[in-house]
């Protein structure tokens, strides 16, 4: 049967092209794969091959014709001896354009439903633990419960962890499940993702998240996106964890806070705990989560002690902020080590008669917007506190979100307290200046309360 040869699209952006040259003439026999024409696209001159075998019946578009739209019939091909009349136009049916989805309209905020249930029941026995011990216990408990959980990273086994977070795990679980890697972040992050695809639950430790930059392709392109790209068939149930942000005097390449980088990515969950109880409860939840979780620890917090509930299987759900201090004049929102400055500032503010409500977000993805909203609707003022860089910070996002969802409740602009917009300096005095400070948080709170 005679069929039309259509002007092909030869690049992702081509809409029309020039039929530069015919390499066949009417009456020629062609096989699939024979080059029949040269076509100029917006990018290059391309050879155009026959798809079917047959005889070129009629050439409909002369060579040299410019502006030939894609899918225009340019020739007729058929079997030998067949009358080559053009069949009825059968241009490819382009899929119907997707219906326009109405943009979400910012509605007046309904009173948010906030989960204020306690993280552990009243009367629970408590024990004092460092963040370091809490993290180790979380891993050990989950490894006892699930044989597919394993830890890999630099110095996690025989050295007992560069920061001693994995101390004792090799002794208990052996070299099969606590695995020292060569110094090769890109490679072992990718192997971890493959192991997760293959049915295991890896905990990949980065000696610091600064080194995760070597591996960020696998974190984002391989781990975070695969569930979506596979239509839900497979994903990467795994944890990437390690210290993040500034320690002390380690300068620009060892001091960055990557919270905003990772929180940007759909498909990742991002956790940045402050207390030891949260470190433990959230890491256990992270290991059980069927998604890739970024678990941002902090070297300075490792040695801090907190009260941790002494119960058999203590977990904290993602997306539930913790209110450390209730207040009525201003909402201070932070997470991770930012909480150190925030709690100090709240104490100082209280002495000045400013009642600050302190929210620890704990997880940045998912983020507990309801707790943020309820608090801002009450205090009408908000300051965010983080150590990361100011441009495209988590605070920027919170400020924008509050503006869109509680504009009428704000009595002052939201202020973002962040690290300074400079690479971290080495000199002690400059380093102090580069970090966010308690004094800056206090000053911001005064500003939004007009004191």
């Amino acid at each position: 049967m005679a069929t039309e040869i259509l002007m092909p699209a030869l690049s992702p952006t081509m809409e029309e092209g020039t039929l530069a040259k015919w390499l066949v003439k009417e009456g020629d026999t062609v096989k699939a794969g024979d080059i029949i024409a040269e076509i100029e696209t917006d990018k290059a001159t391309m050879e155009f091959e026959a798809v079917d075998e047959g005889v070129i019946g009629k050439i409909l578009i002369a060579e040299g014709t410019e502006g030939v739209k894609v899918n225009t019939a340019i020739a007729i091909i058929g079997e030998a001896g067949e009358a080559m009349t053009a069949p009825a136009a059968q241009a490819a049916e382009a899929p119907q354009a997707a219906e326009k989805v109405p943009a979400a309209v910012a509605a007046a905020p309904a009173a948010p439903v906030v989960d204020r249930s306690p993280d552990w029941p009243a009367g629970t026995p408590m024990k004092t633990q460092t963040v370091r011990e809490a993290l180790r216990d979380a891993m050990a408990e989950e490894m006892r419960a699930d044989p597919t959980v394993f830890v890999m990273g630099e110095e996690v086994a025989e050295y007992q962890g560069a920061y001693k977070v994995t101390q004792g795990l090799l002794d208990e679980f052996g070299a099969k499940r606590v695995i020292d890697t060569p110094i090769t972040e890109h490679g072992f992050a990718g192997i971890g993702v493959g192991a997760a695809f293959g049915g295991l639950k890896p905990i990949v430790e980065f000696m610091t998240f600064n080194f995760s930059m070597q591996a960020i392709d696998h974190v984002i392109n391989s781990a975070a996106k695969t569930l979506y790209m596979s239509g839900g068939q497979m994903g990467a149930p795994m944890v990437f964890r390690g210290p993040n942000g500034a320690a002390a005097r380690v300068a620009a390449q060892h001091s960055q806070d990557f919270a905003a980088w990772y929180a940007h990515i759909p498909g990742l969950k991002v956790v940045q705990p402050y207390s030891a109880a949260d470190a433990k409860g959230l890491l256990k939840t992270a290991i059980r989560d069927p998604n890739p979780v970024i678990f941002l620890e902090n070297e300075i917090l490792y040695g801090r002690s907190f009260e941790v509930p002494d119960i058999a299987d203590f977990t904290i759900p993602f997306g539930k902020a913790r209110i450390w201090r209730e207040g009525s004049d201003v909402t201070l929102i932070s997470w991770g080590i930012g909480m150190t400055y925030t709690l100090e500032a709240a104490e100082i503010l209280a002495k000045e008669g400013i009642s600050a409500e302190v929210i620890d977000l704990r997880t940045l993805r998912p983020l507990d917007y309801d707790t943020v909203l309820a608090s801002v609707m009450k205090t009408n003022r908000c300051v965010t506190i983080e150590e990361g860089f100011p441009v495209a910070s988590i605070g920027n996002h919170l400020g924008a979100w509050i503006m869109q969802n509680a504009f009428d409740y704000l009595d002052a602009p939201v202020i973002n307290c962040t690290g300074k917009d400079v690479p971290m300096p080495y000199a002690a005095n400059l380093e102090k200046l580069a970090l966010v400070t308690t004094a800056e948080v206090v000053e911001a709170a005064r500003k939004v309360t007009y004191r």
Partner: protein
Amino acid sequence: MPPRKTAATTEAARPNISADDLKRYYRDMLLIRRFEEKAGQLYGMGLIGGFCHLYIGQEAVVVGLEAAASEGDKRVTSYRDHGHMLACGMDPKGVMAELTGRIGGYSKGKGGSMHMFSKEKHFYGGHGIVGAQVPIGAGLAFADKYLGNDRVTFAYFGDGAANQGQVYETYNMAQLWDLPVIFVIENNHYAMGTSVTRATKSPALWKRGEAYGIAGEEVNGMDVLAVKGAGERAVAHCRAGKGPYILEVMTYRYRGHSMSDPAKYRTREEVQEMREKRDAIEQVRQMLLTGGHASEDDLKKIDKEIKDIVNDAAEFSKESPEPPLEELWTDIYA
């Protein structure tokens, strides 16, 4: 037409292959070629968008290695992935519908040509970042070893990816941990438009494994039986617990890097030479005919069967609806 003298028929030691097996390889390679030709056509009609990298010319690589694989073995590859999917038994309809971005596609239209997966067929993608599939493949092998499964993983990558640093990080760990992974370098001589010799002064890519103690060999990738034989050696090595193995399979892609590549970096004569003298499908066709294993009519029947499968896949890929709009928001989190 007189039988053509091919590399396949002149090689002395031939593996013992049944006529049925040979016919199956012919059929499987032809399916890939016809499927890819149809994909090129649908691209030209605007039904397939974005990037589309065709496998035409390289068919013997995946068909030969799949012939060496067993049920449960895993495979992972780059963005030039349609051939791998068809060779491991994925449904041509689902693959084509993914190319057209429809709900009937393997990823519900959300992955496209470069990002497709099938848990059922142990196909782990379809990865768009050059070289990323190499550690992922080693990770799949790590999981099998950890779980005590007697399985191997085929991690396919091109001569271009062979220069990525993560490949060597992976070689090091795969050998260190004796992972059952076969690194398959599909050397089609061009990393997009850059020939191997313009990218490296050590063009024997498989030999780079020697630095890590990994065994390997070069294979004639235009000869499906040679590929199968090498695949069997590699699989035996891995299953024996001896760690990874490298196959550098010398092959050739007839089409451009992607649909929008005019391929001006090589001569038309070079391509024609490969197509006319080295074509893997034509070689098997001649073996079937000259060996008396199949008649022209038998082969025509196979050709017709393949044509029907591909046409059905194309029809399905046009008729399957676009994903419903709510699919935008699904499969982000498990």
